[in-house]
């Protein structure tokens, strides 16, 4: 009762009308019908589709975090010359300052030097970078969002800078953390580093996991038996304790953390891919390929891998979100990225330490919650899209 009913009289339409005359044409560069069907299924899940776009927009925007939130201007015109501080570090002496050190463009002294010579600066929308300390805090850090400040709170800053009302101050839209750094800027950078970390970890661990699973599933027998036991022993090592030990010996940077988490995350796909290969290697089209004399490597790549990929791709968004979660958890515990890095976990732990400053905890919570929810929604839609009952049904 399936598609065959729709194909009207299949055996009769099959007769070739002088087929030899047809010139061999290049294969059109379009999506295969199967993938087109999947894309339709994916789009039919509105929540997942919208989530994908939101996530992509957020990711693309934060990828250019330096152009949104930075303590260096995009562009300076000074004495008839053009400078691009976003890309190049200039010493202060370039603009008539006294020191050979890198120019601090937020310094009122430097700003005055530039404007006196008729120069001007073009700033990003937010004039803080993730490690910029706001030196004009109206209250002791952590300081509340500027729009929440009372006149009394900002009075002494206003007097010092000669301004009239709180709204004339440089805005910290989501307040500052306990070191006077802008929270909004830190979550923009934090989102980027989390997603990049999650994606990198997922891609590398998938490649290793798929390769290992493919070899085990395809060759089976002793290879499979030995590998499976090794993996069983490996997964029984508690990763958190190992991480604590390693991070006390190595300075845990982005790549060290990536390496450590990679040691354990690659096993997650092995079982799945192995099962797909074990199932797939007995299919008749694999036998047919063998009968054609196709080599093992080609069989694995051309015939088995594409079929194993469906199950794998379904898992990927969930692996990304669990990788992000791992990084956040480590940061929260203080074993993650080095101090000063813009990390969401660190923001959450600041929120925990500063109950009187709810903007820290709330911001951290919503950022992590929205990011993970988007990924999970995308994952659900991907799972639906690859559901064979929907693809063929």
């Amino acid at each position: 009762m399936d598609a065959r009913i729709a194909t009207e009289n299949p055996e009769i339409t099959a007769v070739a009308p002088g087929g030899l005359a047809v010139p061999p044409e290049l294969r059109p560069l379009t999506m295969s019908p199967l993938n087109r069907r999947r894309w339709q299924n994916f789009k039919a899940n509105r929540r997942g589709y919208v989530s994908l776009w939101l996530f992509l927009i957020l990711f693309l925007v934060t990828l250019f975090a330096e152009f949104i939130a930075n303590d260096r201007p995009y562009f300076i015109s000074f004495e008839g010359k053009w400078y691009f501080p976003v890309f190049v570090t200039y010493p202060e002496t370039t603009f008539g300052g006294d020191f050979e050190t890198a120019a601090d463009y937020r310094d009122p002294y430097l700003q005055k030097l530039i404007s006196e010579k008729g120069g001007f600066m073009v700033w990003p929308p937010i004039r803080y970078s993730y490690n910029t300390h706001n030196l004009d805090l109206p209250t002791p850090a952590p300081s509340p969002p500027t729009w929440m400040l009372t006149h009394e709170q900002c009075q002494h800053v206003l007097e010092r800078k000669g301004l009239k009302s709180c709204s004339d101050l440089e805005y910290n839209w989501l307040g500052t953390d306990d070191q006077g750094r802008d929270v909004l800027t830190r979550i923009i950078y934090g989102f980027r580093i989390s997603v990049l970390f999650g994606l990198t970890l997922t891609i590398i661990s998938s490649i290793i996991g798929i390769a290992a699973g493919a070899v085990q599933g395809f060759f089976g027998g002793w290879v499979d038996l030995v590998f499976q036991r090794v993996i069983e022993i490996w997964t029984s090592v508690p990763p958190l304790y190992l991480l604590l030990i390693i991070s006390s010996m190595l300075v845990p940077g982005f790549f060290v953390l990536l390496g450590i988490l990679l040691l354990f995350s690659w096993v997650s796909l092995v079982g799945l891919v192995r099962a797909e290969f074990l199932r797939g290697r007995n299919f008749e089209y694999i036998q047919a390929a063998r009968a054609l004399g196709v080599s093992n490597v080609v069989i694995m790549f051309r015939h088995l891998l594409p079929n194993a990929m469906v199950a794998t791709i379904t898992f990927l968004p969930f692996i990304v979100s669990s990788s992000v979660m791992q990084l956040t958890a480590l940061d929260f515990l203080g074993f993650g990225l080095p101090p000063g890095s813009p990390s969401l976990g660190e923001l959450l732990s600041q929120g925990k330490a500063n109950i009187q400053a709810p903007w820290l905890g709330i911001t951290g919570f919503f950022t992590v919650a929205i990011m993970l929810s988007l990924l999970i929604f995308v994952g659900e839609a991907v799972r639906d899209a690859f559901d064979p009952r929907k693809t063929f049904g």
Partner: protein
Amino acid sequence: MDATVTPLLSVRDLSVAFRHGAHETLAVDRVSFDLTKGETLALVGESGSGKSATALSIMKLLPYPSARHPCGEVRFKGRDLIKLSEREMRRVRGDSISIVFQEPMTSLNPLHTIEKQISEILLLHRGLTGAAARKRVIELLTQVGIHEPKERLGSYPHQLSGGQRQRVMIAMALANEPDLLIADEPTTALDVTVQAQILKLLKEIQARMGMAILFITHDLGIVRKIADRVCIMQQGQIVEHGTVANVFRAPEHPYTCALLSAEPKGKAPPLNPNGPVIVRTDDLKVWFPVKRGLLRRTVGHIKAVDGVSIEVRKGETLGIVGESGSGKTTLGLALLRLISSEGPVAFLGKSLQGLKFKEMRPHRRDMQIVFQDPYGSLSPRMSVCNVIEEGLWVHQPNLSAAERGRKVIRALTDVGLNPDTRFRYPHEFSGGQRQRIAVARAIVLEPTFIVLDEPTSALDMLIQAQIVDLLRDLQKRRELTFIFISHDLKVVSALACRLLVMRHGKVVEEGPASEVFANPQDPYTRALFAAAFNLEIAPEGVVAQ
């Protein structure tokens, strides 16, 4: 049918629609038929004709709500089953209507003993437990002809043969003495000899219990043997109905005529006793070791192929027949060196014994295989063009893209497919078309020898005949040598010029096809032919249960 008798089951204008996403397909279109007590009605049609959907909707076993009935009623003993609630329906199922499915391997729960499975139904509908239930189960197993029923009570499904499992399924269906038994292709998955036994059993039980049988099948031979009346279905509609005698003698609808004449016809190619030998084996053995214990010591062997010697000459077709498990497919794979075997295999005069995978590669372009399942033998992720040209990539890597394309087009034209369809994917083709693609993949390398492993078994009758014609035509035009493996003797008789009958890995009879068919010597061969051509069962002891 006598008009004064109220029918037991009366189906009126029944339609079934399946929804996929936004659009709906009508699988069954306003079907009407009646069934009286003690009568057998056969529903005949190709796969996809809606015969199973009709049967399942009587039991209301379709995947609702993605399936629905736009119109129609199913009157059973005066009640409209379509309008019954799920609760009331559960009381009907397994009690007054029961069903036997096609696949005995998957319709029994592998984790329960057969006693438990049969007594569950007795408990549900009659509340029988303990000794009373056990007594009834033994009675039922005796009825369906299971030997030593008491000893079989504790068996699990995997310990039974396919035929025995189907007998257990029938016992379950009969447990509450139903008024209507729906048999959905109950013998399709079984060997011909077992099929004959099951059909005889159903007939006997019907005579004893007087129930009505709705028999769904695609095999007209079975219809002639078992049914009183027949409904021919095509694309969801009943195109012809009547008594079996009338329909078979004077079919009216063109589709019925086509079905009746669809049996594979034509003559096999002549023997070629002086032609060059293509493949020769001598005492070929494929033994699978049975390993037991901690150290995996070999305690014995399963002798899948045990000492078979064959010789195939150019242009001939050697038919290999036998029941499932007789080793015929294993023999085919061993000849192509796709599994390891013992004993010399010579191909085109060269010994293939001991060659490694890479050393085999140059020979592969001359030997090809076509498999049984047209759905499993094509990679779903490759376009037809890629599927066919894969062999060319391996064996003629220097071919330009244009030349490769020309060869693919020629192969597709040869198997009767439109070459414009070569960028489509396998799931867009029907079963018969897919089998043609599989044949195209085999012939594109211009081999001399092809092993055909049940290439027609998964296809409908009409399409079987077309594929048989295609193969014979290709053989003549390209001077191919075939080994044709099948359990379907009708197809074999249309293609094979020499015949090899296998049982338990050994050859029981061998010779020119015409002689073997006309005058079978071995009692097993005779039983096989009787079952296949006349659906008659062999005397006890010759074939397994």
